[in-house]
């Protein structure tokens, strides 16, 4: 069972009540089955509920209706098997890179020696050698994001939820991290749910792209993409899929609430 997961969302919807008492429907009847070791990208306009959906999967919020199951067990609270990487990296600024990466292990009372080995391994994987004792403020945005990824990977969860992790990076760094993520994914075989605004990124990374409608977010379309990795962004095949998705998100079907 370790490291692989079968995640199933059944009819999830979520309604918030704002301070003024207005009801805001954020998500509406989302049903989706995610296979073990699958790489899912969520694509959708701002405010359509992508973060909300990840939070519900992570057990940080409860859905208003519906249920989530991980390998047949219902999720209604944070589950150590499901780890989320937040939209803002949210590293602990008072901890060094090593201490940030080791945070989850510390919580799980992994003995110091074992912990150090694991941290070392992930520092290598994300390529942060030489920055072990740096503080987050000494790192660039891209490096911080890698620390957050390493922190999540270090506890070896079966599901990784990533909320637009590369949004703030420049094109080059972004490409680099995408490649690294794929390598890590291939090595560790997690189930990944990845939120992005970039069609390019989704096409480059995903097994399946889930396109959501504007708020309240519903599933508009699910696009499977099974071309082999690494994919060539400049290939005709890539351009075709990209065009398909771009067309889709501009269609009334997906661009109207």
């Amino acid at each position, binding site marked *: 069972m370790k490291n692989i997961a079968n995640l199933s969302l059944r009819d999830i919807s979520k309604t918030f009540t704002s301070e003024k008492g207005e009801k805001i429907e954020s998500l509406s009847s989302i049903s989706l089955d995610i296979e073990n070791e699958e790489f899912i990208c969520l694509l959708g306009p701002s405010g359509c509920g992508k973060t909300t959906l990840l939070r519900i999967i992570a057990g940080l919020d409860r859905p208003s209706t519906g249920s989530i199951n991980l390998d047949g067990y219902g999720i209604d609270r944070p589950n150590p098997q499901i*780890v989320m990487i*937040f939209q803002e990296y949210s590293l602990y600024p008072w901890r060094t890179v090593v201490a940030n990466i080791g945070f989850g292990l510390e919580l799980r009372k992994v003995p110091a020696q074992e912990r150090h080995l694991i941290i070392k391994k992930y520092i290598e994987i994300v390529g942060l050698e030489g920055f072990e004792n740096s503080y987050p403020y000494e790192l660039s945005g891209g490096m911080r994001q890698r620390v957050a990824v390493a922190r999540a990977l270090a506890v070896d969860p079966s599901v990784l939820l990533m909320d637009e992790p590369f949004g703030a990076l420049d094109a080059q760094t972004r490409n680099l991290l995408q490649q690294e993520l794929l390598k890590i994914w291939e090595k560790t075989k997690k189930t990944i749910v990845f939120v992005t605004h970039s069609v390019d990124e989704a096409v480059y990374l995903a097994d399946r792209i889930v396109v959501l409608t504007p708020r309240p977010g519903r599933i508009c379309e699910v696009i499977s993409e099974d071309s082999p990795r690494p994919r060539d962004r400049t290939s005709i095949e890539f351009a075709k899929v990209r065009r398909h998705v771009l067309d889709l998100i501009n269609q009334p079907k997906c661009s109207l609430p």
Partner: protein
Amino acid sequence: MKKPLYFFLPVLILIAWEITATFINNAFILPRLESILAVLLNPTATTYTMGTGSLIDNAKASIIRILLGFLLAAVIAIPLGIGMGRSEFVHEFFDSTIQILRPIPPLAWVPLTLAWFKIGITSIVFIIFIGAFFPILLNTIDGVRGIKKTWAEVAMNLGAHERQLMGKVILPGAAPTIWTGLRVGFGVAWMCVIAAEWLPGTTQGLGYLILYAYNFGQINVVVAGMVAIGLIGIGFDVLFKWVEKRWFGWRSLER
């Protein structure tokens, strides 16, 4: 201190003081610098302090009292503040009481203090406690509430228990704000030293010395006492800021 400008105004004030003092020639209005310096530069002498021990003895007595009151305030205010910051219930429970007690001057507590804690160090410490308590409490509440929501969520997401959350996220995250509260609280504690040492049974301390010297018109001793309080105050403030920079530097460097 490489910046000469730092010394400009103080030196200017001293010169103006001395000239005016010479001109007015009335020690009750402006004692001469010499007479003030005589007290300050002989901190171990008992010549000027009218039987209260030396200036250093007085300073020591005050510092010990202030530290005690301050530490007591910290020990009570920080846990209470964490509770109030974390739980709406605890906050509502204590808030009204704290709001009404907060504006009451430490000096006003003297009558009840004497009745409750009798003469002695307890009463003095209590008055200082009153002064230091509220800044520490309010800053702790603020600090805990100011914790980034995602910091706590990351921890929960990674499986932290309530106790781990407290020790590994809430406390370190709120620490810089709490520290500021401690710094401010310590400053207020200093400001209560006169009120505290006004209590019966006190025979020593900078606050006592100021009042006592005043009763005998020894304005130069009064001013020397004020300067001593100012200098010690600066000393502690520098210490607090140094720790802040060393331990909590991440906050100002963040983003």
